[in-house]
């Protein structure tokens, strides 16, 4: 190519770059706006109707004064799409931009959202209403412990129970499983028990633990059900856009640890609430270390604006 041709080629490419006012991968955001696939309108409306019931019962007096006055302007902004209530997490005001509204599309990837309207639901606003992100983390695993308060003969339990395995050389506990809810329990000779594998609610874990206690009772031990406590909850969700982990670790150095040689995800240790998040390049986020469901939701609402910041870069 001679100089003239090369110059014209350069100018062709320069025009392309100049013409694109956005940085290179903002194109996808534009796409989302034009092909706005609203999720089921029925889903949203059911959500909205449940919202209205809750707002009557909500007691917002625990919020600091400034926040409750700021409720109104943000309400107006969000009312247009999500019709959510003014429940605040620690997420600062300025990070909820117009782009939040577009991302309500992504909530369609989550499974059916059940508001647990059981007696155990506390009246303080812990239920996760679709707020700034529109995505609700799903609980994947709940670990709980309970004290059966009587010494147990593990050999006899392993002999009499169909669903038990006991290998004293490998591990000093009986591993028992039940089908419904699908869980696994570790039963120790001291009478303490760990119940894992319950999905989606604390009540499931409690029911499973009670079933194990019943089995132990039927086997002839005076088992009780003391100090049932949820020790750990694991949740996961998908933000539906790829995340620049290298950028995130640079700006949030004191919380993040990203070693691609060791693990493909970024480990983010959030201080408040004390939750560990595993953030992957595909947009999937795993949250663990919670003792209560609200901690997982709060942690996700905290991280979501940060992650969105890394979408455009």
């Amino acid at each position, binding site marked *: 190519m001679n100089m003239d041709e090369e110059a014209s080629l350069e100018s062709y490419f320069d025009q*392309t770059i100049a013409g694109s006012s956005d940085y290179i991968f903002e194109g996808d955001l534009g*796409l989302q706006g034009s092909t706005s696939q609203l999720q089921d309108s029925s889903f949203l409306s059911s959500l909205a109707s449940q919202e209205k019931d809750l707002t009557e019962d909500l007691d917002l007096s625990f919020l600091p004064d400034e926040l409750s006055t700021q409720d109104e302007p943000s309400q107006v902004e969000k009312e247009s799409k999500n019709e959510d209530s003014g429940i605040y997490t620690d997420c600062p005001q300025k990070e909820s931009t117009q782009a939040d509204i577009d991302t309500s599309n*992504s909530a369609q990837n989550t499974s059916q959202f059940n508001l647990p309207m*059981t007696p155990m639901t506390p009246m303080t606003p812990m239920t996760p209403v679709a707020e700034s992100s529109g995505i609700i983390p799903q609980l994947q695993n709940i670990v709980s412990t309970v004290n059966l308060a009587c010494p147990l003969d593990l050999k006899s339990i392993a002999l*009499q129970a169909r669903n038990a395995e006991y290998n004293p050389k490998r591990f000093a506990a009986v591993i028992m499983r039940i089908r419904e809810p699908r869980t696994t329990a570790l039963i120790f000779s001291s009478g303490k028990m760990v119940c894992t594998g319950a999905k989606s609610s604390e*009540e499931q874990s409690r*029911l499973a633990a009670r079933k194990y206690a*019943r089995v132990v009772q*039927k086997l002839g031990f005076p088992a009780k059900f003391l100090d049932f406590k949820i020790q750990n909850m694991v949740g996961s969700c998908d933000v539906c856009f790829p995340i620049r982990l290298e950028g995130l670790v640079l700006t949030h150095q004191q919380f993040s640890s990203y070693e691609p040689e060791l693990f493909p995800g970024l480990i983010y240790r959030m201080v408040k609430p004390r939750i560990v998040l595993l953030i*992957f390049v595909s947009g999937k986020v795993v949250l663990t270390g919670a003792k209560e469901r609200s901690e997982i939701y709060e942690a996700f609402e905290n991280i979501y604006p940060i992650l969105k910041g890394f979408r455009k870069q």
Partner: protein
Amino acid sequence: MSKNCPECGSSRVVEDDLYSQKQWVCEDCGSVVSEGLLTTTLSEESHSRAVPFFTSTAAFKKPCRNLVSGFSRLRALCRIFRLSSSMEDASANLFERAYNHPNFLHISLSKKQILAGCCMFHICRQNSWPVFMGTIGYLLDADNYQMGTIYQELTKSLNLQTTQVCITRMLESFCYDFKLAPDEVEEVFSVAQQRLVDQTSALLELAADTWILTGRRPFPLFLAAVYVAWQSLNPLARMKYSLMKFCKIAKAPEQLWCKSKDTINKRLNELLEVLCKLGRELPWVRPTDIQMNTVTTLVEDILKHRKALLILAVKHYEKQLEETQTSQYSESELSDSKSSVQTQCKSPPDEEDEGCELPPDHWGKRHLFLPPCVRTQKRQKINEAPLEVTGDEDISDSEIESYIRSEEEIKLFAKARKKICKY
């Protein structure tokens, strides 16, 4: 015991130790009232224990033997990686701190060796000295998993601030391993070091922009990028050489490419795919001419104009998506299931490569460049419907009984176990 001093009669008699011999001394006149035993009895000597090292009052305690050998290993490692003396001293200090930390004092010897490597690794990172954790692990005969656990324990216990790896410097040291100077290989194969580094870093930048680099081990991608860069600098002559051939020509150290051949090939394919997608946007090339095995000839041009090509590629993809969307809507109005299937398969050519693996309304379809882990959908787990339980429900006896063996079963089981245990 409080006596009165026989000399002066005062009652202030206190206990005092003189050379570990107990004495009762009068405070007023200083006379010794009574003394204890200075020597030990036979029974004490035969039944008492020697003073162990860690409670001894020795003023100078010799450093632990393992610590000393750890230091010598650490310094040897530093010399292998040609660290400066200040970095070497910093590593030694860190190692001493870590060694004496309660979390590391009682770990096994092999882990202490790995600890030495991790300390050096941390100092290297702080000074942007390019070292792969895998290389250190190779020298210490430990895998990444072991190195990783100890490294993370180290940063947590000593509250160290981790610094991020500098990709360009890593790349320079990586390229150094390939001996392609004009005096080492034939003219056809040789390439100037700096030229190779520049070309490879441009390719890596491209890989980072198109989501191939994030979340992956850097090494296989580095190797694939160096290979493509080397080929692209003289494509007509070098196209016929495979990756393995290239490693042999450049006398790359064996441990580099022996272990992860599959991953390296995968990364190579991903890189070539991205180059193909961009190559299609070059105005002077016919789209049908772009093949994976010939795109290397165009790499120079693609890299020169990569920014513009990326923008063009994304724009065209968006346009294509919009067109298929509108055609889908008009088709669905006719409510002809057959034609809607056809339009779905007419979707952008990129989708056909994956065999339409992603579900139709997946968010990934809107992106041209995507982390490969999003495209390859694993088998969907069967999501059980969440049980609505209160936790306090009644538990049916029959359900519990189904988990308990009957008498006969117990007998059979016990018999069988006895038989097995015989052998």
